[in-house]
Structures are given as structure tokens and as C-alpha cells.
């Protein structure tokens, strides 16, 4: 975990004081609503459908147990006792009081947290692989690089009023779990034949109104130049990105309009001036940052313990299900990463009560060196669990209702807060998620369907990432009524693709039936061992369309 030094702490403290002053001036009528808006959203404060909402940054998804405990305190003391983990790995509190937000920010600062740039037309929270630092397929640990980017982008004086929001995702593993192809900038860290870190830079990906897959701007940027190159790239966007139409203001529109060659040429021309400047990273600076992300001193796990774990897995079917679905491999033999499912019937996806936050913090201390990760699929991860304690952890998670053995299945759907909370939403999304979870709760059927991403967004802004769901559901407004458009064939990861719209939209009650028909087509058409997305890619949209609209 990154630990603040006096510089970081001073900056967040000064930020709290600045926002408290801004809030006072706003309440005194010295700042208009319109002019207060960017100030408050740059501190995570929205004014939503029914109440304000505070979006708290969880930089690259990493949380210490004491931080999660504090988030629980805030949910209990300032809100209605629960919080919502988002697809940007942040936490949203849905019912704070406007005037108490400076106090909430001060509480966050006391545990090295903040809500800086969780909204606004600025560089947002950087996201990464939830298995960073522990996965078997990792070439480069992305976390030190994420923190370097966090610091570079925090209060960047030139990039606080960009044409639109700007999101960066980083991966250092063979399998992309950070969705780098659908970010404004996606970074893949890899090693050259001398073992030096290089960066593949993608730009112009994104979801929202005009979904696009990012283009490669550079394949092999040497690590020293990461920040100067990003600065050049964002400067080109700041100067040339469209500002006349907010729906055409993201960098993807600029990259598309210029073409990637011309975009690259402009970035390179700008970079020529910044390259080798003061922001060039030094080996000492990177090593100092890496020293924050060293492995914990893990207890050695013997072969007997590993064998015992495998035996138990063979004997206990319920435990085996949990391990197969919710437990991920680890670079150290005898250790596993465990995903805590925040998806269960009767609860909004991604929600956690304050008691559960405290309990998960305790489990992290007991089982996983006091650290928790938040995933962009809206789950939590304990990344360092010894196999001889997995069974015990499983039982404890069952008691908390966080051991649903359905990670990666249809039941593990992604869902934005939608019309129940969000002022932007065209339609509710949570009731749709709940109806689907109720309809498809038979665990054997879920397993039979295999890996399946179902993503729901309540509007075009696509916070629920519906474009990259194998099945995507988008809430739309038709003459004041809520309708739902279904798309198929989206995917995240190395082989990202954008879903295609199935046809005319449906009312809310019909959605589970439509999903059922889609699944029937898959089950009927699949070849041996074929996943949903593989079948879709082989047979295309047509058979699904014919069945659903028959």
C-alpha cells in the first residue's frame, strides 16, 4: 500500500480547507450554483435525484483495512448505513448532507483518503487489475506506476478544465483485467529483452454515447518517459478536443477525427519539447515508489497444507464451487486471491452496509495482511489468503452473505445505481438486476451457462459498461417511459468488442423473458465447451434476433 508522507498529507489537508472555504462561500451566496458545480464535483460531490451523493476515490482499487473501517464509519455517521462500490472502483455514499461534506472529507484525510477528481472534466481515478502484484500472469506490477500517475494527475494545474472527463487504466498482466481498450488512455506495461519496463499506450477508447476501442499510439515507450508523454498527450487533447458539444468532447472523438496517425504526430511534436524534462522518471524515484508495494512477509505454506486444501476441495462440493468461481490463482504457491461477491438476491449490486465494511476490514486483517481491493465488476478481493485458512474464510464469508459462489456467472452482473439514485439516468437499473437475479438463481443452470458478463446501465453514460457485456442492457427513455435496449456480443479483456443492439427495446417486465430466450439460443446452438461469447461470435446476432422477436 502507498503510505502518505508529509507532502501528501499536507496536500489533502489543504484540499479539505480549500473545499470548506468554497462551501462556506457558496452557502453565503458568493459562488453561484453553476460556478460551484465544478468545484464540488472535483471533490466528488454531486447533487442527485433525491439527495447529494459523495463519490470517494479508491485509487487503483486499493484499500487498507483501517480505510475500509473509516468508510463504514462514514456510511453509518453521515449516511443511511450503506455505500455503493462503482465500476470505477470508487465508493459512493448516496445520502450525505451537503453542509457536512467538508467534515466527511476531513475524516477521509485522517486515513489518507480523499474524493479528489472523482468527477469533473479532469483526470479521474486511475484504475487497474484487481490482482495486481499477485497474479501469475503479471509481467510488471502496475501499482507503483498507478501511484506515479495519481500524483502527476492530482491538482494538475493545466488539466483541471479539460473538454471532458479523462480516465486512465493500467495493466501489467498477460490478461487485461483493467479494460484498457475502452479507456481514454489505456496503458500496458511490459518488459523488453533487457528487462526494462516499456509502455504500450492506447488512446481514444471509451464507452458512453459513442463507444470505441482505443487505438495504439505507441508500442514501446521507455518507462522514464511515461509522465512527459502523458503530459504531451493530454495537452494535445486540452487544446484540440472539441468544446462546442459535450457529447463529442471525449478524446475518442478527437482521435477519430484526426485519425490516429495525425493524433500521434501531434503528440510526438508536443512531446519533443517535454521529453527529458524535469518530469522524466528516475530509477531512484521508481524504486522509492516500488518500495511501497512490496510483498507482505508471507508465512510459508508447506506442500502438505496445499494437498490438504486440494483434498477438501474434492470432498466438499459447496467449498469446491466457491473455490472454482470465487478464488483466483496466486504467484506464490499456497496462496490465493478470494473474491467477495457483492451480488446477491435482494441487494443492489455493489452495495455494502457499514457493518459489513467493518467485518470485511476485520477479515482482511485476519486473513489477508490488512488489504482489500475493489474490482471494476463491483466486488471486493482479499488478495493474499493462505490455502490452509481458505475454508475458515469461506465459512466466515458465508455468515456475512459475501460468499455467493457465482463470480463470473450471469448472477455476477454489473449495474449502475440508475434511476433509483442518479439524476442522469433515463431508467432504473437495480430492479432489472434484481429481477434477473431472481429469475436465474438455479446455481446449476448458472454454472451450465458458464462465464457470462451481463452489464446494465441506466443511461447512455454507460457507468454499467453495458457495451462490453456479453449481454448488455441499456435503460432508455421513450416518451417518459422506461424501456430497455438489449445488446449482445460485447466483451472486455484482451479481445474487447462492443455489443450490437438486438432490436427494438422492451419494457421492464419483459427483460427477464428476453434474457431467457437469448440464453436458450446459446444453450441450443453451442458447440462442446463453447462459452456464450464464443458461440455468439460464431453464429452472430441473427439467430438470437429471430428467437427474441419471433
Amino acid at each position, binding site marked *: 500500500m502507498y503510505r502518505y508522507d508529509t507532502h501528501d498529507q499536507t496536500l489533502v489537508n489543504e484540499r479539505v480547507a480549500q473545499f470548506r472555504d468554497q462551501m462556506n462561500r457558496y452557502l453565503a451566496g458568493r459562488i453561484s450554483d453553476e460556478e460551484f458545480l465544478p*468545484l464540488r464535483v472535483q471533490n466528488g460531490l454531486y447533487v442527485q435525484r433525491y439527495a447529494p451523493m459523495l463519490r470517494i476515490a479508491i485509487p487503483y482499487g486499493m484499500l487498507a483495512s483501517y480505510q475500509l473501517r473509516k468508510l463504514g464509519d462514514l456510511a453509518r455517521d453521515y449516511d443511511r448505513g450503506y455505500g455503493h462500490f462503482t465500476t470505477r472502483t470508487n465508493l459512493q455514499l448516496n445520502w450525505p448532507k451537503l453542509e457536512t461534506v467538508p467534515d466527511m472529507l476531513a475524516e477521509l484525510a485522517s486515513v489518507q483518503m480523499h474524493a479528489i477528481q472523482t468527477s469533473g472534466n479532469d483526470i479521474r481515478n486511475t484504475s487497474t487489475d484487481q490482482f495486481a502484484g499477485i497474479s501469475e500472469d503479471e509481467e510488471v506490477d502496475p501499482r507503483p506506476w498507478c501511484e506515479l500517475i495519481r500524483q502527476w494527475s492530482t491538482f494538475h*494545474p493545466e488539466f483541471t478544465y479539460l473538454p471532458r472527463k479523462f480516465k486512465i487504466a493500467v495493466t501489467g498482466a498477460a490478461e487485461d483485467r483493467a479494460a484498457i481498450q475502452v479507456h481514454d488512455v489505456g496503458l500496458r506495461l511490459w518488459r523488453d529483452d533487457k528487462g526494462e519496463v516499456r509502455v504500450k499506450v492506447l488512446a481514444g477508447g471509451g464507452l458512453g454515447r459513442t463507444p470505441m476501442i482505443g487505438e495504439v499510439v505507441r508500442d514501446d515507450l521507455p518507462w522514464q518517459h511515461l509522465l512527459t508523454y502523458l503530459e504531451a498527450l493530454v495537452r494535445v487533447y486540452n487544446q484540440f478536443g472539441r468544446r462546442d458539444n459535450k457529447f463529442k468532447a471525449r478524446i475518442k472523438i478527437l482521435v477519430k477525427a484526426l485519425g490516429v496517425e495525425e493524433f500521434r504526430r501531434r503528440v510526438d511534436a508536443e512531446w519533443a519539447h517535454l521529453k527529458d524534462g524535469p518530469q522524466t522518471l528516475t530509477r531512484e524515484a521508481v524504486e522509492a515508489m516500488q518500495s511501497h508495494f512490496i510483498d507482505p512477509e508471507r508465512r510459508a505454506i508447506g506442500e502438505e497444507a496445499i494437498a490438504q486444501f486440494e483434498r477438501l476441495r474434492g470432498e466438499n462440493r459447496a467449498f469446491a464451487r466457491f473455490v472454482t468461481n470465487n478464488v483466483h490463482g496466486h504467484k506464490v504457491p499456497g496462496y490465493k486471491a478470494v473474491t467477495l461477491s457483492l451480488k446477491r438476491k435482494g441487494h443492489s449490486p455493489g452495495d455494502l452496509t457499514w457493518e459489513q465494511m467493518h467485518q470485511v476490514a476485520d477479515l482482511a486483517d485476519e486473513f489477508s495482511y490488512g488489504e482489500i481491493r475493489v474490482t471494476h465488476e463491483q466486488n471486493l478481493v482479499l488478495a493474499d489468503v493462505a490455502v490452509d485458512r481458505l475454508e475458515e474464510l469461506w465459512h466466515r464469508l458465508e455468515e456475512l452473505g459475501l460468499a455467493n459462489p457465482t463470480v463470473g456467472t450471469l448472477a455476477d452482473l454489473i449495474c449502475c445505481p440508475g434511476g433509483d439514485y442518479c439524476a442522469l439516468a433515463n431508467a432504473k437499473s437495480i430492479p432489472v438486476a434484481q429481477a434477473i437475479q431472481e429469475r436465474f438463481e438455479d446455481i446449476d443452470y448458472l454454472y451450465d451457462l458458464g462465464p457470462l458478463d451481463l452489464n446494465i446501465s441506466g443511461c447512455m453514460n454507460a457507468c454499467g459498461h453495458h457495451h462490453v457485456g456479453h449481454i448488455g442492457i441499456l435503460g432508455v427513455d421513450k416518451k417518459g417511459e422506461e424501456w430497455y435496449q438489449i445488446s449482445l456480443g460485447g466483451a472486455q479483456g484482451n479481445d474487447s468488442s462492443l455489443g450490437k443492439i438486438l432490436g427494438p427495446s422492451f419494457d421492464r417486465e419483459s427483460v427477464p423473458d428476453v434474457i431467457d430466450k437469448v440464453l436458450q439460443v446459446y444453450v441450443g446452438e453451442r458447440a462442446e465447451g463453447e462459452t456464450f461469447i464464443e458461440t455468439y461470435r460464431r453464429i452472430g446476432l441473427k439467430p438470437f434476433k429471430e428467437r427474441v422477436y419471433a
Partner: protein
Amino acid sequence: MPDQNATQRPFIRDGKPAEDRWLLIRDAEAELPASTPAIVPLARWQALEGSAELAPWLASDTELTPELAEQLAAAPLIAIDFPRFTDGRGYSLARLLRERYGFDGEIRAIGDVLVDQAFFLTRCGFNALSLREDQWLEDALHALNAFSRAYQPAVDVSEPLFRQRMREAVKRAEPALA
């Protein structure tokens, strides 16, 4: 006609309240004052080049080419317009003028210039702020000191915090070596 009387706008130069002699003329056709120095649209300034009593203002979408920067080097001051406070292009323009083209005269922010932009504007090289008429001067002076340090280098700070940290670490280590 000038769009407003310059003296109505709270004005800060080099971190302090200051008197502003310059009249801002937004209109490309307006008559020039006889005895007051004036800030005029860039194209007009280019046409009338050479007067120490005339300065250009740049629109936020100005493309700052090396040729333009060379011309601007002779300006007594350069103003950069913020048509809306949310238009962030002026920040890049000011940094380029300072850092790339070495302009060391006055760079002033004009237009929709608000208290809460003051800190970042200053970091990017604006040393003069002509705030919107309704802004409170004392709030702006206070806002100039919002933060005591920064992660990134800009016009005000020459090195990023990560380099400063390395120097501090060396310093901390020195007594132990002695």
C-alpha cells in the same frame, strides 16, 4: 466601445492588488483611446504592431505557432481570454508562452476569471488576473495560497515532487554517513 471599465474589475498583479491602466477592447472595429494603453484583439495588434501602448489578447482557441510566439515576444503584455471559466485552453497557452517561448513579461487572464481559478492560473504562468466584476478580491488573494506544494512542475515550480523527495532522502541519509 470597451466592454467594461477596467477599474471595475478586481485586479491582481504578482500576488497583490494593483491598479490597472490598461483598457480592454474586445471589438475588432472599436475606436482606440488616445491616451490610455489598450489591450486589443490579436489580429488588430498584429496590424498596428510596434506601439508600446498596445497589447494583444488571445482567444482561447489560438494556435500558438513558433511564428506567432516570435511576434508576441515584443508585446508589452499578453492577455489570454477565458470565454467561460470552464474553458481550460488558456492554461496551456500560458505555459507554452512561459516555458517554451520564454516570454517574461506580464501574462494576464481576462474574461470569465473566477476566484477559484486563481491558484492554477498562477501556476501556469499568469502573473496578472483581471477577475470578473462580481468576484471578491480578498477571496482571490486567499485562494492564491490554497496549496503549499505541488506534485508537478509548472511555471512556479521547476521540479516534480518526486525529485524533491529524492533530494530530501539524500539529506536525511547524510548525517548517518558522517
